[in-house]
């Protein structure tokens, strides 16, 4: 009974032990957990911004990172 009770915890601890390798600085539990809590939102915003950049690039006549001076728009294939 003791075995079956401890096994899932052991598996979980092993999985997380890989996530938290030792470091010389104590990150602080609260600081650590807060990041995990907001990771989804802040990461999502970054992903959204990047996709929005891609959408804008697709619909704009010139990709934003193209060097305009070097390549006039009429010279671009399909431009």
């Amino acid at each position, binding site marked *: 009974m003791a075995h079956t009770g401890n096994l899932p915890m052991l598996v979980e601890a092993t999985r997380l032990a890989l996530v938290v390798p030792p470091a010389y*600085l104590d990150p602080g539990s*609260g*600081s650590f957990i807060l990041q995990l809590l907001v990771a989804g939102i802040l990461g999502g915003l970054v992903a959204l911004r990047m996709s929005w950049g891609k959408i804008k690039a697709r619909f704009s006549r010139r990709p934003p990172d193209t060097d305009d001076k070097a390549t006039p728009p009429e010279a671009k294939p399909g431009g």
Partner: protein
Amino acid sequence: MGDARQPSSFRDRSGFLFTRDGRLFRQVNRSYQPDFELLLSSGLYKELVDLSLLVAHRESSEPPADPALAFKVLEPERMPFISYPYEWCFGQLKRAALCTLEVQKRALARGLSLKDASAYNIQFRGHQPVLIDTPSFERLVEERPWFAYRQFCQHFLAPLALMAQVDVRLSQLLRVHIDGIPLDLAARLLPAHSRLRPGLALHIHLHAGAQRRYADVPLAASRGRMTRSSHIGIVDNLEATVRGLHWDPRGTAWQSYYEETNYSPAGIENKLALTESFLNQVRPRSVWDLGANTGMFSRLASRQGIFTLSIDSDPGAVELNDRACVQEASPNLLPLLIDLTNPSPAVGWKNEERMSLRERGPADAILALALIHHLAIANNTPLSDIATWFSHLTHWLVLEFVPKQDSQVQRLLSFRADIFDDYHEEGLEKAFAGAFRIISRQPIRESSRVLYLMERR
């Protein structure tokens, strides 16, 4: 061999700094070898050095100071002066914070991360902040939160928020709290409206709350994983929060000093010319301008390529000086916020981690212009004590004597008893005679003031 291990270099076991025969070296330990090699092979080291965001080093053939642990010995580029966050004005601390975040962003893009975000790892080359701690990088473990997040908030965000939203003088809390301002303290001191700013609400208020709530929760019990995007998101959000903080000097005592002073235009021209001629006479390699205000006279030295500290105790004056340095892209001038009546002490472990101002000297030359009355009268310091203190700090001394009849001194004496019987030129010369030899004495035109050039005995 006479190696001296740097007292501030003990926390991280990746290596340490030591000096040998006056040269600075960094031992990189074998335990740091994989991350060090990744820093170089990823191209991050070159990228950051090319952008002046990280100090350059060369690999040295010097024997290590601790061979049992050593992987390599590096000789890093030396900084002209080591300054500390509690000596920086708002603008300098903000640039140091943004430099740290820029380094972290570029590290993330190459699969590395900063393992610490200490403000003491940043130094200024002129107006430009630079990371001096080469072994601050480690391989990014994407799913793991940023270990240096708390340190960044304590070292940079909390003091900047307090300076911007409460009082600029709260930067001095960094002098007491050597690992940055505790977030619960920052949260208590910040005004209620700071909670309306999403960045401050998250990184200070919620962060302080999370620290309180999860203080006893072991890290291994935390659930969830980070992604590359969430790492970037945290850094982006911190950057936007830092960029959103501003402080402007208003009503600072020195802001219009040069306009309001009792110098005539000819007088100030003459004082500039005399100071410059003294500097040309002694050709110093380093100058500390004490009581520099916004640095008009510091620039006489820095524009000649002399490394110059421009020290003042007024946060507004230092801020304006720093802004001018940024505009001029000045490579040799470093404005610092230091109260000369209570200069930076040695602090930290064994009183050795952060050096006192005196330990970081001496300078070749000191400019003490329109300063003596603040020390002798406003602070009641005996003239002979001032002479002794200056002799610890410099070889050459350019000193302006401001006599009692000067309106600036009259202003200081207007509400107090004149107990300063020896405060006159003869008294000054007598008090300084033990420590200094007078080389030249020049009256300043159209004023009652006198400029001295002295050499330490």
